[in-house]
């Protein structure tokens, strides 16, 4: 997951920097805060999914999709290396 989430985290940081402008002292604290809030939001979403017993829905993903998802980490890794 870390591999797939890195491009998103990067672009969160980039858009905050773009909004504040180069060298703004608030860029780093705001970005850190945005990352922490992302974690909290994701955790809350998982807990909500658990509260509504959405686990059964996972059975609807076909197996081909699952193997495909694992396979797509390779392009992700390569893109990350070339950043």
């Amino acid at each position, binding site marked *: *997951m*870390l591999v*797939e*989430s890195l491009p*998103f*985290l990067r*672009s*969160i*940081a980039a*858009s*905050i920097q*773009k*909004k*504040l402008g180069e060298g*703004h*002292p*608030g860029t*780093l*604290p*705001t*970005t*850190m*805060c*945005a*990352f*922490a*809030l*992302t*974690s*909290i*939001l*994701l*955790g*809350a*979403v*998982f*807990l909500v*999914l*658990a509260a509504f*017993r*959405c*686990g*059964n*829905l*996972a*059975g609807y*993903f076909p*197996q081909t*999709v*699952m*193997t495909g*998802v*694992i*396979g797509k*980490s*390779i392009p992700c*890794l*390569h893109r990350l*290396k070339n950043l």
Partner: protein
Amino acid sequence: MIGAVGVSLFLLGLEITLPSTMPHLSLSALFESSHLPMLAASLGSAIFLSSSTRFAFSPGIIKDMTERPLYVPVFCLVVGFTFWIIIAACGIADLKRLASVGWLFAVEASSRQDLAANEWNYWKLFDFGKIEWRALSAGVRDTVLLVVIGALSLPIFASATALELDVLDYSMDHEFVGHGISNLVAGAIGTLPNLLVC
């Protein structure tokens, strides 16, 4: 497919141990005398972990230990603590020198200005007076995308892992609760979102 992921993760792992002054992975760089201790430390612990979980003929008590679900996480923590104990025992106080040889990640000079002495203390970056709340909205689109993709990929990853490991009796709801707690804790201590890696 999974084999290819393994190979590219392995290469990435080898490359990460190289200090940033030599960015390209090559056999000569990998086996250079100055890099050998680090190669031994990183590869050695990986080999130890993988062989200790796989040896069928190990004595009962060790087998009991390595089959516990917490074995791998505890092992990772122990590696980190061992590193710092050795650093303390050798009396090395200059972390910058460690970073320049590659034992620690180096912080880029451009972002170093705020960090000063304690580079490792990332909590110092949470300067709540300096946070520009209006700028947070700039990242909302990507935050939502990340959360949606994370929430969608957990069931896929979890069931794919279960399929791979032949675990038939797993509860997706338990996975959700576990990942919910771990992400809340991660957010509370100010780190990145996390998800099962398969």
